[in-house]
C-alpha cells in the first residue's frame, strides 16, 4: 500500500538487516539473563552482599568474581564439546540422539586402558584387565576412545546414508546399544583410578581449553572448508546438493563420524575430570547438547546455524545453572525453570525469524 512496496511486492533488500547476525541476539539474551540474576541477587532478601558476576568481597584482583566466570563455562564445556558435533549433524539435516550413551560407553572403555597399578600404595581396587593394562601411555586410551567413537559414528552415518532410515530412529537404536555396551563392559561396576597423565587431560580448566580449541577448529572447518560448505548444502536441500555433484552419502557418514568422535573425546575429558568412569555417565547429555545448539540458533530443519551460536547457547546454559545456585532456587523448581527457559528461547528465535523473513 505504501510507496516503498511499489514494483517489488514489498521485497526490499535491507543491508542493515542482513548484516545483523543471529549470534548477536543470543549474546544479548545471555547478557539479559546475567542482568536478571544480578537484579534478583540484589533484591532477594536472603542474599546479603553477594553479587552474581562482580567481586563484592575483594577476593580477586579484578572487579569480577573470577570463580563464577570460570564455573559458568567449566560446567558446560564437556556437553559443549558434544554440542559442537551435534551442531554439524543438525546443520546437515540430521539429528544424533546417541551421543549421551556414547559418552557412557566410551568412558567405560577408555578408562579401562587408563588405569594405574597402585593407588596410595595399594593395588587398584577397580582393575578391569590384567597387569598389562596398567600405566599405559596416555595416547593409547585416547586413540581407543576416538576409534570407538569413529566406529559408532560410522555405523550411524552408514545406516542413515545407505538404508535411508530416519536419523532419529538410527541414532535412537544406537542410543540403546551404547547404553547397553556401557553397562555390559564391567557389568555396571564403575572404573576408577586413572594414571596421572590421563588425569591431567581434564584437570582444572582443561575442559574449557579443549572446548574452546575444538570450537575454533570446528568454526573454521564449517565456515571455510569444502566440508563445511557441503554440510550446509546438504542440510538446505539434499537433492540440490546431490545434483550439484556432492557425494551426499559419503559426506553424511563423515558428519556422523566427526560428531561421535567429538562425543567420545568429551567422554575422555569427563572421565579424566571425574577420575572415574560409570555406565550411567552422560545421561541426558544428548538432549542438553541438542538444546545448546538450538538455543544457539541452529535450525532443526537443517542448513542454518553456526558454531559461535552453539558456544553462546552453551554459555546460556552455564549462566542459568550457576544463577540457579546463586539465588539458591529450590532444587525442586530448577528443572521446570530450565525447561521453560529453553522453550522461551526457541520461541523468541522463531518469532524473530518469522518476522525477519516476512520483512526481507
Amino acid at each position, binding site marked *: 500500500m505504501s510507496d516503498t512496496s511499489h514494483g517489488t511486492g514489498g521485497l526490499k533488500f535491507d543491508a542493515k538487516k542482513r548484516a545483523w547476525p543471529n549470534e548477536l541476539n543470543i549474546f544479548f539474551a545471555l547478557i539479559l539473563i546475567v542482568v536478571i540474576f544480578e537484579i534478583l541477587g540484589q533484591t532477594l532478601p536472603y542474599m546479603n552482599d*553477594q553479587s552474581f558476576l562482580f567481586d563484592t*568481597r575483594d*577476593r580477586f584482583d579484578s572487579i569480577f*568474581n573470577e*570463580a*563464577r566466570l*570460570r*564455573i559458568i563455562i*567449566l*560446567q558446560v564445556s*564437556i556437553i559443549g564439546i558434544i554440542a559442537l558435533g551435534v551442531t554439524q549433524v543438525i546443520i546437515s539435516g540430521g539429528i544424533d540422539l546417541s551421543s549421551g550413551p556414547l559418552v*557412557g560407553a566410551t568412558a567405560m572403555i577408555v578408562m579401562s586402558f587408563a588405569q594405574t597399578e597402585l*593407588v*596410595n600404595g*595399594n593395588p587398584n*581396587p*577397580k582393575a578391569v584387565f590384567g597387569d598389562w593394562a596398567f600405566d599405559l601411555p596416555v595416547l593409547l586410551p585416547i586413540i581407543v576412545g576416538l576409534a570407538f567413537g569413529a566406529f559408532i559414528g560410522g555405523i550411524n552415518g552408514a545406516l542413515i546414508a545407505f538404508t535411508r532410515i530416519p536419523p532419529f530412529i538410527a541414532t535412537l537404536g544406537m542410543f540403546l546399544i551404547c*547404553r547397553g555396551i*556401557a*553397562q555390559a563392559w564391567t*557389568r*555396571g*561396576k*564403575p572404573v*576408577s*583410578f586413572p594414571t596421572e597423565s590421563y588425569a591431567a587431560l581434564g*584437570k*582444572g580448566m582443561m575442559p574449557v581449553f579443549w572446548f574452546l580449541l575444538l570450537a575454533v577448529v570446528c568454526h573454521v572447518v564449517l565456515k571455510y572448508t569444502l566440508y563445511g560448505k557441503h554440510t550446509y548444502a546438504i542440510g538446505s536441500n539434499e537433492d540440490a546438493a546431490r545434483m550439484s555433484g556432492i557425494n551426499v552419502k559419503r559426506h553424511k557418514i563423515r558428519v556422523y563420524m566427526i560428531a561421535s568422535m567429538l562425543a567420545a573425546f568429551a567422554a575422555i575429558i*569427563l572421565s579424566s*575430570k*571425574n*577420575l*572415574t568412569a*560409570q*555406565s*550411567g*555417565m552422560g545421561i541426558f547429555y544428548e538432549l542438553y547438547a541438542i538444546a545448546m545448539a538450538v538455543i544457539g540458533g541452529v535450525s532443526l530443519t537443517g542448513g542454518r546455524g553456526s558454531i559461535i551460536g552453539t558456544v553462546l547457547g552453551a554459555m546460556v546454559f552455564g549462566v542459568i*545453572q*550457576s544463577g540457579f*545456585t*546463586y539465588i*539458591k532456587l529450590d*532444587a*525442586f523448581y530448577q528443572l521446570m525453570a530450565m525447561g521453560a527457559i529453553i522453550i522461551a528461547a526457541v520461541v523468541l528465535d522463531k518469532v524473530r525469524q518469522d518476522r525477519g523473513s516476512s520483512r526481507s
Partner: protein
Amino acid sequence: MKKILMTAGVSALLATSAMADTIGVSVARFDDNGLTIMRNGMTDYAAANDGVELQVEDAQDDVARQLDQINNFIASGVDAIIVNAVDTNATEAMSNAASAAGVPLVYVNRQPVNMATLPEGQAFVASNEVESGTLAAFHMCQELRAAGKSGGAKAYMLMGQLSNQAAVQRSKDFHDVIGMDMCNFIELIDEQTAEWSRDKAQDLMTNWISSGEPFDAVFGNNDEMAIGAIQAMKAAGISMDDVVVGGVDATPDALVSMQAGEMDVTVFQDLAGQGAGSIVTAMKLAAGEDVDKTVFIPFKLVTPENVADFLN
C-alpha cells in the same frame, strides 16, 4: 546340526533349573553403582551355592516394566521373587500379584510402602535407612566439635535425586542431627541436588565456592557426590584439613579418598550382604519356613581409624 545343539542347550538349561530353586530377581537399575554391588552380592551367592538359580532382570527405572517382569516370573513358575523396587510407592500391586499366585516375594534394599500390610510369604531385607544419614551426620558434628568449631559452623548438603526415598531420608537425618542441642551450632547454608552424580556435585560445589561464603562441612547423600565436592574444593585450593566431608556407602573410591586424608566419614551399607540376605530369605520362604517380616543388615561407621578394615 545347529538344531541339535540348540535342543541340547535348552534341555541342559531345563535340567539345571529343575534341580535348584529358581529365583526371579528384578533390580531397579543395572547402571546404579550401589545396586550393582547388591546385585553382585546375589550372583556371587548363587554361584557359590548349587541350590539356587537366578534370573536377574533390569527394570530400567520403569515401574510398569518391573511389574511386567514380576508377572513374567510368576508365569514361568519361579520358586520365589526378589524385587528391588523402582518406586517404593508401587509395591502394592506387586505384593498382590505374587500373593495371588502363591509365590514368595522378598523386597530388598528399598522399603515397600505396604510394609505394614505385607501378605503372608513376603519379607523385606535391607539396612535401616534412618541409621545411615544419622550416623554420618552425627560423626561430622562430633568432628566439628573436636575441631573447636562448636561456636558456630557452616555446612552445605548435596542431595540425591529428589524423588528417591534414600535421598529424602538422609537429608532429613542431617536436618534432624543439626536440630539436636548438641549439634545445633551447625548452620546449613544451602542444600541442592546433584542427582547422586560426582560430576554434577563437582560443578555444584564449584558454584558454591564461587560465592565466596566460608564453610566448614559438606555432607553428601552418597559418597560419589562427596568425592565430587572434594575434587572441587581441591581444585579451588581449599585444604581438606579445614573441611569435614561426609558421605554414605563406603565405596572403594571413597575409602581411597579417606585414606588420602580427604573424606572424613562415610557409612558402610552392606549391600552385598543385603543381596545375599535376600536370597537366603527367599529360599527360606520357598521352603515354607517362618521368616521375620523385616530382616535388617546393619550399617557400619567408617572413619580414618577403621578404614583399613574395609579396604581389602
